[in-house]
């Protein structure tokens, strides 16, 4: 029988078999006897259990945080972002419908079928966007209530527009009143309900996209990694081996997890930033431009109905758009590519054309030539405004696609992270246990 090795001594070579002197071991009993482990294998076993426990705990904590991050990001991409876009589409569609309805009204009963078609198409888009919001808004009760309110008001709005169209054949005053009621319904009730949904979506967007708490997950993983490095160094020293392969592999796995989670998070945040700075800000500016333009057009239409020149009311609106620090300048500065710059420049060029026609229209009213003013409104001003509006719409469509695309990129950047954290943690724990088991086995 070979001589006994001292229990406290490390094996001198890799081939040495440790033999535990069971007779000399202290008697251990009771619930916490493992805490009083005295032998090297017991201490190693205890350390292994603690290390595995810590790694599992780190993994669980990271997985929980990653799960929340992925869920929030997915919700931004599939719900919150779409709600934000769809609510803007609803506002724009109602404003366009209102403008087209006024133009139809101006032309008399069914006198301008192109504008009638534009009105119907705008209402179709508004309805479709409402359905989109209802589909993706989730279980937000307040948003659903607002949607119900919009749906009811949309029916009333369309009814008033239709009634105005029919009334205009016989009773122009009544028709004017109904058109005004419809516009007021749009401006007050519908717009505020849409804004309510948009505001709530914006709040969710901010909450879901800002995730500084995720650093906790990365730090936890880094702590796990540091622990494994320390353990590896200690085992190397204790067993005089440079490498404990399983624990080294476990450290590599954790290192990969740290890198991948940091990289995924950074990519997600970068994609969100791009979505906001390159697309959403541009969307908001374009939407403001559109709203100001619709207001300008609506005032122009009213001026014809009232037979009054309102140039003084229109100029401030034009300044909001075209002044050196106006919305057009902002749109150009928000443009993030030469293509977007080109689109913004086209918007400005088409607005300038519309303003020329609007000036002609107001000029006709100034000299009490209502017939000429109406002809301009129905003809060249109408065409110029449609050109402007569709160019804004085209830019908005591009920006909306860009926005949703970048949200999807954010979501994609985290696609494998949840699974990686789960499997990586388990693998690291198993490898750690294996690494300790090897050394314990050497003792036994």
């Amino acid at each position, binding site marked *: 029988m070979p001589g006994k090795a001292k229990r406290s001594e490390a094996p001198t070579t890799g081939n040495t078999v440790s033999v535990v002197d069971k007779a000399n071991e202290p008697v251990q009993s009771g619930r916490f006897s493992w805490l009083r482990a005295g032998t090297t294998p017991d201490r190693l076993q205890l350390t292994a259990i603690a290390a595995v426990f810590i790694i599992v705990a780190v993994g669980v904590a990271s997985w929980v945080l990653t799960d929340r991050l992925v869920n929030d990001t997915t919700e931004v991409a599939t719900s919150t972002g779409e709600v934000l876009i769809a609510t803007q589409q609803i506002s724009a569609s109602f404003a366009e419908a209102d403008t087209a309805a006024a133009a139809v009204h101006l032309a008399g009963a069914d006198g301008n079928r192109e504008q009638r*078609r534009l009105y119907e198409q705008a209402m179709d888009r508004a309805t479709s966007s409402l359905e989109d919001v209802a589909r993706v808004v989730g279980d937000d009760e307040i948003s659903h209530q607002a949607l119900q309110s919009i749906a009811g008001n949309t029916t009333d709005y369309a009814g008033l527009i239709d009634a105005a169209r029919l009334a205009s054949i016989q009773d122009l005053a009544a028709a004017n009143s109904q058109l005004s009621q419809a516009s007021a319904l749009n401006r007050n009730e519908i717009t505020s309900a849409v804004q309510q949904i948009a505001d709530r979506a914006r709040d969710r967007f901010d909450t879901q996209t800002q995730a500084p708490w995720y650093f906790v997950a990365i730090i936890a993983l880094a702590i796990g990694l540091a622990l494994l490095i320390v353990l590896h160094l200690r085992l190397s020293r204790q067993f005089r081996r440079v490498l404990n392969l399983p624990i080294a592999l476990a450290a590599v796995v954790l290192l990969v997890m740290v890198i991948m989670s940091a990289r995924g998070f950074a990519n997600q945040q970068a994609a969100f930033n791009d979505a906001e700075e390159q697309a959403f800000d541009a969307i908001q500016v374009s939407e403001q431009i559109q709203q100001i333009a619709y207001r300008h057009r609506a005032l122009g239409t009213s001026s014809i109905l009232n037979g009054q020149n309102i140039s003084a009311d229109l100029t401030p609106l034009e300044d909001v758009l075209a002044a050196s620090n106006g919305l057009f300048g902002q749109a150009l500065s928000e443009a993030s590519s030469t293509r977007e710059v*080109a689109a913004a420049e086209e918007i400005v060029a088409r607005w300038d054309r519309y303003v020329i026609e609007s000036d002609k229209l107001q000029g006709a009213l100034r000299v009490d030539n209502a017939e000429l003013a109406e*002809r301009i409104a129905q*003809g060249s001003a109408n*065409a110029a405004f449609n050109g402007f509006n569709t160019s804004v719409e085209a*830019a908005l469509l591009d920006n909306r696609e860009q926005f949703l695309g970048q949200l999807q990129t954010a979501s994609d950047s985290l696609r494998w992270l949840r699974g990686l954290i789960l499997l990586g943690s388990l693998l690291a724990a198993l490898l750690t246990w294996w690494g300790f088991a090897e050394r314990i086995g050497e003792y036994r």
Partner: protein
Amino acid sequence: MNRLTRRSFLAGSAASAALVGLAGCGGTAATETVSQSGSLRVLNWPDYIDSALVAQVEQQLALGISYEPLWDDNYVGQDLFGSQWDVVMPTNWLAAQYVQEGQVQRLPVEFIPNHKNIDPVFLTNNWDRGARFHMPWQSGITGIAYDPDKTGRELTSVADLFAPDLKGRVAMIGEMREAVGLVMLANGDDPGRPTIDQAENAYERILEADAAGQFHSWVFDDFATSLANGDVAASMAWSGNTVTLQEQNPNIKFVIPEEGAIQWFDTMVIPNGASNAKGAAEWMNAFYDPALAARNTEFVQYISPVLGVQDELRQLGAAGRSLADNPLLFPDDETRRRFFIWGGLDSSAAEQDLDDRFASLLPE
């Protein structure tokens, strides 16, 4: 001057459907990358450009241009959506299909500063608001041309094509969207936003009149010959060909029916596989320069979709001034409000089915 024969085609709309089907196999979604290799390959309708302008643009862009006047809406030639063509010019309804199916690229507008010169009337199509995927080439009106000596009266309405006194002396254009669209107007419907029921009603009306011998023939650009020869007294007609016909026979009249007329346009698109999308964009930009576009209008005599062409034409001498004052090329606002661009049925399958049944009315 070489006159256009824009529509010397119709091999059968099934071929068009096959083309769309093939295209659907090879295409991808609109891409943001802008290819720019090799010469520029342009596929257009026959006699639809002043060839001197091709040479001028070639020099201006310092780009080799291969220009082929072989297109029609049933083009089933070589690989359209592969890499063979950079610009093709389908009619609006077919372009709408291409856009909806993702067969064509988003226009790289950064190379098309003249995109702002598109007439707004072409920007409100529901299938491509703001013209992000297409740029109209030329546009025309489908109305009624007639010889007053043969009709014995003025024609003012689509209903006149169905009048008993003209039985057997009317030619109809064999393009479904124009014929059905025009009759929809007579029925009080809007072809800019057609429903299946409305289109079917119009088709039935055509079918019944055809069975009753109301129509002498189904025609395309040969309607002008039929009118000139006196084979028919009246015909559905294209404005551009009628302008040409009137130069030879001033007695012929073209009328925008009181119910309205169908406006169509052929439009430039960039297939997904184009290897020189940048060149395609520069070509489009060149032809949206009002001065160049005016010279092409002088040749093709259709409605230009380019703002500013009327003013440019006035600077091209007496012939140009005459065209600038021609209401068929530059209709006033009042008239333009009576133009309707086919909006497409909600169901493309239903539209294809109607197209097929309509095609069966035409002689082999």
